């Protein structure tokens, strides 16, 4: 009977739960789904991670290749993110060129990398003006159950921490690069940007970590990306119902607690990994 009501009047069904300050899956309004992360599962990639936020699953693989540095910044390398939302993850997507949601997500991840300065692009330079590393970060969504942006940022961060780049020397005589695969070093990760997403319901209620159904019923979304010093890298609110300054403050404080939870999880995972 409840399933029938849910199909006919999904918003009313939801409101019944929100009135009791909880959601159909039993979570509270400010509670995240179970987050799990797995590092280094892709052997052929230079760095990889798999993040699960409840049912939402995103895998990130990073490949490092050589490239010429940009002419206007000869001492910098590149980081090229790409989010792929394939028909595998949700019925909403068709195969072919990336749709709007994938492009928006890719742009969001590119902005987060740029704004938070998670890695210094100067670290990726091998020989100024001639050779630099290009990190291709592919984020593939395997299962879309809402809150893609949080999962993608976390997957990217975990994969970046897992990347090991071999030492490269440029031979003066032949001008060729010599790669020493035996000597690898980790990237210097300067900050840890963690994203927290909220959905706005009925212009007033804010719920954290929306599932796909909740995202469809919501009147607006908000994503806050924060680093460990409480600095904001990104406040992404693509339209939707209006928010007052006070509500934004609540979101900030929730983002701070979420950052601590995620950082703890990531530190545990990296500590438990056996050094190669």
């Amino acid at each position, binding site marked *: 009977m409840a399933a029938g009501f849910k199909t006919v009047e999904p918003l009313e069904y939801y409101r019944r739960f929100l009135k009791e300050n909880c959601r159909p899956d039993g979570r509270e309004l400010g509670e995240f789904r179970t987050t799990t992360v797995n590092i280094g599962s892709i052997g052929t990639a230079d760095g990889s991670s798999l993040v699960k936020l409840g049912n939402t699953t995103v895998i990130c693989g990073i490949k490092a290749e050589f490239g010429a540095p940009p002419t206007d910044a000869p001492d910098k390398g590149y980081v090229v993110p790409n989010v792929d939302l394939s028909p595998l993850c949700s019925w909403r997507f068709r195969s072919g060129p990336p749709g*709007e949601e994938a*492009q*928006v997500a*890719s*742009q*969001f991840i*590119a*902005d987060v990398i*740029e*704004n*938070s*300065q998670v890695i210094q692009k100067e670290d990726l330079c091998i020989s100024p003006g001639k050779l630099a590393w290009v990190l291709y970060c592919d984020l593939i969504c395997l299962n879309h159950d809402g809150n893609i942006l949080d999962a993608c940022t976390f997957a990217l961060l975990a994969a970046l921490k897992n990347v090991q780049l071999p030492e490269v020397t440029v031979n003066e005589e032949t001008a060729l690069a010599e790669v020493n695969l035996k000597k690898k070093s980790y990237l210097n990760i300067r900050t840890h940007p963690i994203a927290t997403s909220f959905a706005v319901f009925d212009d007033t209620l804010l719920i954290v970590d929306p599932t796909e159904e909740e995202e469809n019923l919501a*009147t*607006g979304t908000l994503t806050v990306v924060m*680093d460990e010093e*409480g*600095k*904001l*890298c*990104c*406040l*992404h*609110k*693509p*339209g*939707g*119902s*209006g*928010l*007052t*300054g006070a509500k*934004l*403050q609540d979101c*900030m404080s929730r983002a701070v607690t979420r950052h601590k939870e995620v950082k703890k999880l990531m530190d545990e995972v990296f500590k438990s990994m056996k050094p190669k």
Partner: protein
Amino acid sequence: MERVMQTETKIRAESGIESGPRGPGCSLRNFACEQNLLSRPDGSASFLQGDTSVLAGVYGPAEVKVSKEIFNKATLEVTLRPKIGLPGVAEKSRERLIRNTCEAVVLGALHPRTSITVVLQVVSDAGSLLACCLNAACMALVDAGVPMRALFCGVTCALDSDGTLLLDPTAKQEKEARAVLTFALDSVERKLLMSTTKGLYSDAELQQCLAAAQAASQHVFRFYRESLQRRYSKS
């Protein structure tokens, strides 16, 4: 023949308070707005902020493809064309921001199974581009007669390295700034409809920029009202 109204207003934000390194003693650039300049779209507007200029055209409510129709409200589409080159991923991202902002204010429920298309063309970019696009879109929607719950405006704030707030930055100021924040605010309660930011900043700075943007939005809304009054009072 519709007379073309051009209104120019120089706006200065009140700075009665002694402006320290974080004081909002800053001004918005000259505004100019021209409506109904294109004959084919149902509504059109050109919005100028200093040297930044955006032309917007609105078609709607019009026929919608069956695949895109929504049974109980209008389908809003936004196309943003850059000045040079083909539209890329950054344009798609901005289109999504503008579209969601318009969806929050346009009363789509009054025109179900129709489409409202907003087309924006960047004529010149001298800083605060997204805010100018939002303002142009709002004026064009008003010109087209699309029913809206409220008006909205875009305001850009830049924070430079020592924390000084700059409203409506030029391209040079944006490049040198530590953080650039763009907000879309609605006219009824000055609530935050849309926000997109670039760079690193603290929570306190965010609240400060938001307050400054809310104060500046008052000037923008007054400008809207004046330009519309001038347009309709003489015809």
